[in-house]
């Protein structure tokens, strides 16, 4: 078995405006966990997507057990024995465990062509044994916890006789106990010769389960190393590439009086009793793993969740948090986690920028198109949004430029406090740095910024203060000087108990 299970050579992928992967070589052995490491946008997801068939590579070759293969579609990938376990789970919550595990390939009886339930149940039980899931096959997935769902995903891959398993941040939403269980199952799978490509931001997982580590940066492969030979510091340096200061430009800003004061903010069990402040010129980083409630917190603040309750005051005015219009009027701005949730992609750049300020550019009750053009052009210029003209649809822009449009919107309506949820997800390094610079500039002009991110380095690099969110609660707070990656990670993962006040 000298031939690697899976091998990629010279693989490249170009998206409009972004070189997502450039001549990457990668291989995976039988019974190995190969850890894939990199910042957001480094090319990890692109690599996974190529293997799982949801995007096609531009160039390069893929070998499975020494034979060259083409992966044309997700179905094709599954047929060839490659299974992706999605981070954002791809299960049907309204169907049972058995139906989910066999989704798309329910066994049928040979004559009647009806679903063969006896067979499904017996197969499901066998698989559930293998993955250590102890519920009835008829349980609805909606009734399972997130850890059990992850196992069902893995079960789904097993039912497809997968040889290569792609795990994307499998532990990001799991408790310590569930993680241990997952590791156990992984080691069982490895014994059967299955190879696992493991994507995670948690460096601490490497010594626990990885055999080798590959670091990607800006679409290039930096290095592949034996897991026991590398230190975390070395890996971070390889991921970031340049000096951290240069990557995360941090302006010296005078921090002023309190702008935003939040207390007793609740939203079901997604946000529990959140309490914090944001001052003029301050960047407050909120770090949390997937499912920690960080996006719910942002949405509650901005009046998008009508079940949210709590006290929010901005500049001393208390805010009706059930209404987005009021939040904006009082000077809040919100940049959504997914750009398509905040921008109307099929409308023009100009229109997307001016939505919240249309009221201010009315003449005799009608939109003053000239004023609108002027404002839009001004911001396109100021933020260096690259486009031939301002009537271009936002969907035709690159991710970085789309994000600048979102920023321009809130800059032009003079937002005092800007909530940014994963502002640099899926945009390339150059664009990231310019987004960071704009953040710094806004802070300098006296705005307060809430930076929500799952990118720890980003949080550490830019924040004046770091809050950590876990299971709906703000569990810890650090000043810029105190903040250190290990402690923050531990709090975020729920390993450390609530301590002190925030």
């Amino acid at each position, binding site marked *: 078995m000298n031939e690697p299970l899976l091998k990629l050579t010279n693989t490249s992928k170009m998206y409009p405006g972004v070189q997502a992967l450039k001549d990457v070589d990668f291989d995976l052995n039988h019974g190995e966990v190969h850890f894939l490491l990199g910042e957001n946008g480094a090319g990890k997801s692109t690599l996974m997507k190529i293997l799982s068939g949801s995007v096609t590579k531009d160039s390069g070759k893929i070998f499975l057990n020494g034979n060259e293969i083409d992966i044309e579609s997700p179905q094709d990938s599954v047929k060839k024995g490659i299974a992706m376990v999605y981070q954002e789970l791809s299960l049907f919550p309204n169907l049972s465990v058995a139906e989910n595990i066999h989704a798309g390939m329910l066994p049928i009886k040979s004559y009647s062509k009806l679903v063969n339930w006896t067979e499904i149940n017996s197969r499901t039980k066998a698989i559930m044994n293998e993955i250590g899931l102890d519920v009835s096959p008829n349980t609805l997935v909606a009734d399972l916890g997130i850890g059990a769902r992850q196992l069902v995903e893995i079960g789904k891959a097993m039912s497809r006789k997968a040889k290569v398993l792609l795990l994307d941040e499998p532990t990001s939403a799991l408790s310590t106990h569930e993680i241990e269980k997952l590791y156990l199952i992984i080691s069982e799978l490895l014994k059967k010769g299955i190879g696992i490509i493991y994507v995670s931001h948690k460096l601490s997982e490497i010594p626990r389960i990885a055999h080798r580590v590959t670091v990607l940066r800006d679409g290039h492969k930096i290095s592949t190393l034996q897991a026991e030979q590398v230190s975390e510091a070395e890996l971070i340096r390889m991921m970031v590439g340049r000096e951290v200061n240069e990557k995360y430009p941090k302006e010296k800003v005078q921090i002023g009086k309190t702008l935003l004061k939040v207390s007793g903010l609740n939203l079901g069990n997604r946000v529990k009793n959140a309490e914090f402040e944001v001052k003029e010129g301050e960047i407050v980083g909120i770090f949390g793993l997937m499912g920690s409630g960080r996006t719910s917190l942002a949405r509650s603040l901005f009046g998008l969740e009508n079940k949210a309750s709590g006290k929010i005051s901005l500049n001393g005015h208390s805010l009706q948090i059930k209404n*987005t219009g009021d939040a904006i009027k009082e000077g809040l701005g919100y940049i959504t986690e997914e750009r398509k949730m905040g*921008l109307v992609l099929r*409308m023009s750049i100009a229109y997307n920028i001016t939505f919240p300020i249309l009221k201010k550019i009315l003449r005799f009750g*009608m939109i003053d198109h000239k004023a609108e053009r002027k404002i839009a052009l001004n911001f396109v210029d100021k933020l260096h949004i690259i486009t031939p003209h301002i009537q271009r649809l936002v969907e035709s822009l690159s991710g970085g430029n789309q994000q600048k449009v979102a920023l321009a919107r809130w800059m032009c309506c003079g937002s005092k406090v800007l909530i940014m949820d994963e502002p640099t997800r899926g945009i390339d390094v150059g664009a990231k740095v310019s987004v960071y610079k704009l953040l710094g500039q806004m802070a300098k002009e006296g705005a307060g910024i809430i930076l929500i991110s799952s990118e720890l380095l980003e949080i550490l690099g830019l924040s004046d203060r770091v809050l950590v969110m876990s299971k709906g609660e703000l569990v810890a707070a650090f000043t810029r000087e105190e903040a250190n990656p290990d402690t923050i990670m531990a709090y975020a993962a729920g390993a450390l108990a609530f301590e002190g006040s925030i």
Partner: protein
Amino acid sequence: MSKPVTTNFSILDIIKERKSSFKNLAGPLLGMFILVFLISIATPFFMSSANLLNVGRQAATNIILAAGMTLVIFTGGIDLSVGSVMALAASVAVVLITHFGINVWLGVLICILVGAACGLINGLVITKGRVPDFIATLGMMSLARGLALLVTEGMAVPSFAIAVREMPEEIIALGAGHLLGIPAPFFISLVVILITWFVSQNTRTGRYFFAVGGNKEAARVSGINVEKTKLTAYILSGLFAGVAGIVLAGRLNSANAHMGVGAELNAIASVVMGGANLFGGEGALGGTLIGGITIAILNNGLNLMAVSAFWQEVAMGIVVVAVVVFDQWRRHRFSEKK
């Protein structure tokens, strides 16, 4: 990579920017011209000015309904009730005028208000009651038709057994008169299209229609009151159904509960043939106008060719779908080239 724009802009930029919106009308226009060409070969009488004016008259109510429908479709909704609401509004108004003898213009106002009220109810049920657009307006479609039957007791009004006066001249003029040589109803429909176009392009609410239909969640994040926007679209759709009702009553010289059966489908077809996206966020009133005229041309042409009414329905269905298939294909090609 293209160069960044500069703050100095010229008229040329504006033309460049606007070009894309004209491009979207190319498909519907082409469809209409092909149809005109084919029909005028088959029956030369089609191109006579008397007949063309007739086409305009026939197109009018559909265009008025389609204008309101366009706004609703911009927001990503659909209004199945417009045909019934038109019948109800006209019935109420004509009964009040001819049986109870109220002032004609008060009657016209009531007609429009009844339409708007139905639209308001649709909008409230959809936004406050969280009922899908399709279901809410389907309910109104049946409800309004039933009310119209009750109001008219199932008869054409004015029914001369009990009416105190005949259909007033003013209303007949709205449906059958002329203004500057153009049939009055067509003139009214053009005014309606012009107003809706102006609203959609130059007012905040107009801009919001597109935003809500393009991406409801993003609209909300941008501070747009999504519910209020949808409500406005439905009110306008109902209001225009009222306008169409009085015009149609004038043209028919009477109102009855069975006016405009199936009118909602013609209105939707006109909007979609005009290039609007049924899922919301895209389209133009100019396209709707072309769509409405195209449908009238088709009906008129088939009539001139003495095609049976049954076959006309079949032909209508085929042409509507064919135009949209063509348009989808054209857009798909265009977007791939981009």
